[in-house]
């Protein structure tokens, strides 16, 4: 049987490390998707009249 302190420490670690890892994973995924969306939106944005290369 493990010591009382060891069991409590491991349980505490399971709660906080587990949920912190999940929060970190969500945050990282959201940032990556936001960057990808910004790139795509910039690439597909239509140029306003008077902007961009003129006709030859």
């Amino acid at each position: 049987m493990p010591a009382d302190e060891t069991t409590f420490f491991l349980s505490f670690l399971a709660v906080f490390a587990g949920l912190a890892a999940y929060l970190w994973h969500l945050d990282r995924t959201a940032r990556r998707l936001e960057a990808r969306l910004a790139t795509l939106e910039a690439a597909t944005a239509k140029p306003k009249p008077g902007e961009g290369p003129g006709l030859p």
Partner: protein
Amino acid sequence: MREATLAAWRRGSLWATLATWPVLLYLVWFVAPDWSGLADVSAPLTRKVLFFHPASAWAAFAAYFVVFALSIAVLNERDVKYDAPARAAAEVGFWFNTVALATGTLWGIQEWSDSGNASLATVYSEPKVLVVVVLWFTFAAYLLLRRLVDGEERRARLSAAFGVLGFLGVPLSFATSRLLSTSLHPDIAGPGANPDAAVGATVGSVLAFSAVAFLALFIHLWLARLRIARLADRIEALETA
């Protein structure tokens, strides 16, 4: 849910989570009773897991109920708009379920060793634990299924059917420890709770607060996961345009 409403809810849930968790830790360390020195308590420090283990299980069950309700909506209304929130709730519920299983396993090995049953096999052959393990595998399969099935509508309908069936494990886990006399797992609250496992007013209050803190965290994680789904949808729409 519109983007602005979703953002407002996400901000609110973040503040609720940030406010409740330091209070919970204070209550667990300084207000909840210190069980050391009591003759019938073999592991007083481990007993503090009481303020994390049931609340994480309740948060998982709340998440699975959300999956159940949204899955019914998918099947009933034949509308895939409920599918993304259901998937987000399933993923968050699966994480809380993992935390509940990990803490419960450690606690079970420690507490149930009094009767000479200090093995992992004893913990995992306990009826309630076994049902929760099956629940964990069911929702792991639910999340895996979503990666394997092609077609938005087909995936939504299959996942919904799986979500409804998977939720049956939640009432079953409540029933097993209450109905089976061989169960080692104590029930501290609700109908059929063990009289010898009943908690006092102070422990009950901290326990109720921990349930609120975990529920706030669940809502925050769910909304954060939902935001990721929305971002992925917008990217897919732009890429296929």
